[in-house]
């Protein structure tokens, strides 16, 4: 649709520009805040242009003890914790849902649809709803303050199972039959045919799940008491409440900036596969 009306062009651009400002301005302020010293950040008005403390702040945030006067873990460790948790959640979710979708689509076993609906129903049970029993289980298993405890309760995923089921249903039956004639067993078919065919969908899901895992707040807050297991998202909140001093905005904002980098990197790196995975239907 090509239209040439100056007023519409102006209005659409206005809306777009407002949208960009609404999204980008907070990010800009975060960046600006990470380039000033603590003193400047506590004076009004807030600076709108970068200062020259970026490297200093970065160094103190990443390798120092973060906020001065507290005993939280250095931010690089938190980044590592978050990364480990997000990777474990996303790969775990993908692996498990691929296998369960494979079972549901390609195998006939008693109560197959029953199992499918049971998986489906877990959509109604996110971790926030089952938080007490889940905590109990994790505590009894001795998984508090560990990567396993951080990730396993979040791994089961009805959404991903459902999505892979739909993907597998679009794979023509002839491919399976052809593979059977070629002598491929179920696992061989799964790894040689299904996985490569779902490559883009896996990538798309990985992006979504990585961000889901990275942004976990409530669950890590509950089960990590050891500062060496703190994740970055929960630490930002803790930094705000730290001690009886005014918040050290420069450090907090540097941390926030660092926390943004991995998700942004994942999205940018996998953008092409992400779009393909969500839009292509032809196998």
């Amino acid at each position, binding site marked *: 649709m090509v239209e040439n009306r100056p007023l519409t062009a102006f209005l659409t651009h206005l809306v777009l520009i407002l949208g960009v400002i609404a999204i980008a301005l907070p990010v800009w302020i975060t960046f600006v805040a990470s380039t000033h010293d603590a003193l400047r950040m506590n004076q009004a008005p807030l600076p709108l242009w970068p200062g020259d403390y970026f490297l200093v702040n970065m160094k103190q945030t990443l390798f120092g003890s973060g906020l001065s006067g507290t005993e939280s873990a250095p931010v690089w460790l938190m980044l590592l914790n978050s990364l480990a948790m997000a990777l474990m959640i996303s790969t775990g979710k993908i692996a498990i849902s691929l296998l369960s979708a494979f079972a549901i689509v390609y195998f006939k076993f008693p109560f197959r649809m029953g199992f499918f609906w049971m998986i489906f129903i877990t959509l109604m049970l996110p971790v926030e709803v089952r938080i007490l029993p889940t905590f109990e289980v994790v505590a009894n298993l001795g998984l508090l303050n560990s990567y396993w405890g951080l990730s396993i309760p979040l791994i089961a995923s009805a959404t991903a199972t459902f999505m892979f089921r739909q993907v597998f249903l679009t794979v023509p039956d002839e491919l399976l*039959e052809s593979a059977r004639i070629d002598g491929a067993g179920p696992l061989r078919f799964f790894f040689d045919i299904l996985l490569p*065919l779902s490559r883009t969908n896996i990538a798309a899901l990985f992006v979504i799940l990585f961000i889901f895992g990275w942004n976990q707040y409530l669950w890590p807050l509950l089960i990590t008491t050891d500062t060496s297991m703190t994740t970055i998202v929960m630490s930002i909140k803790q930094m705000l409440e730290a001690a009886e001093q005014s918040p050290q905005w420069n450090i907090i904002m540097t941390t926030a900036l660092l926390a943004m980098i991995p998700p942004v990197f994942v999205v940018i790196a996998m953008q092409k596969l992400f779009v393909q995975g969500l839009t292509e239907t032809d196998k």
Partner: protein
Amino acid sequence: MADIQLKDLVKSYGPTEVLHHIEGDIRDGEFIVIVGPSGCGKSTLLRMVAGLESVTSGEIAIGGRRVNELEPSARDIAMVFQNYALYPHMSVRQNMAYGLKIRKLPKDEINRRVEEAAEILEIKQYLDRKPRQLSGGQRQRVAMGRAIVRDPQVFLFDEPLSNLDAKLRVQMRLEIRKLQQRLGVTSIYVTHDQVEAMTLGDRLMVLNGGYVEQFGTPIELYDRPASVFVAGFIGSPSMNFLPVEISTGHATLPGGGLLPVAAAHSGAATLGLRPEHLKEDENGPLAIEVDMLEQLGASTLIHGRLHGTGHSITASVPGHAHDGIGSIRRFSAAPELTHLFDTVSGKRLAV
């Protein structure tokens, strides 16, 4: 190379029986075409031979070995699917080599076979392309190549040409025939296209509603169709059928004409006349009121009704015929080219 025996083969889905007691002996190296209208069970039968559908009762034997319980891969067969079923993420070479790789053949042996098959099918220059970069005809060749490299005892074709355009279909039909003759592998080919069936098959198995109507050479089927169904299915344009009364070597046509037929029988019957066996004859007993002409170039199809009745009838005459719609033309037919069928069972009446 192997013969195939189908013994009292039955297939049911729940209480519904879809294939009824199929019998068939297929000799080593034979090209068998299973033909029938859609829904007659022909694909099901082929898939049972392939091992993709279970056998309800009866037995399938390949090379004298019962294969009912064997996995498709253990039956030593290769199958070509209607939509090719190539693995979209693998190159042509990988597609063809996949089955061999699973069988753990040595690498150079796999390469040799793939190259050889590619040579035969003239797809050497496409070996490193992906299926989606190929045209329909080329994909079809790759699918056949994948069957050839396996060096199987039996080829199974499931309507392999129905996704191709008409011209390519004729060309591939010839190539499949040549290839099969060259390799000498027993083949079963499923199609709904009677021309394809006639030109390809050493023998044809005509299926209708899960029953074998007739199993014989194309000429047998054309010359002596065993039932009204086969008579109407084989041959193009299809046979005309008229209800007649037979007495003393003559059939009384619905309009009242008398047509000499070769019959020992008397009473009611269904008379079958092929359009191409109707000869224009001024004194002929068949008076056709012409409704429409179809010009085919070499011949003309005359569509009309038997004069004075509602029975539609088609005749094929050589050359061109331009006008005469509404006129009455008279035809006769040689007694040895008439077919008589039982009015109830539709079976051919013995002469």
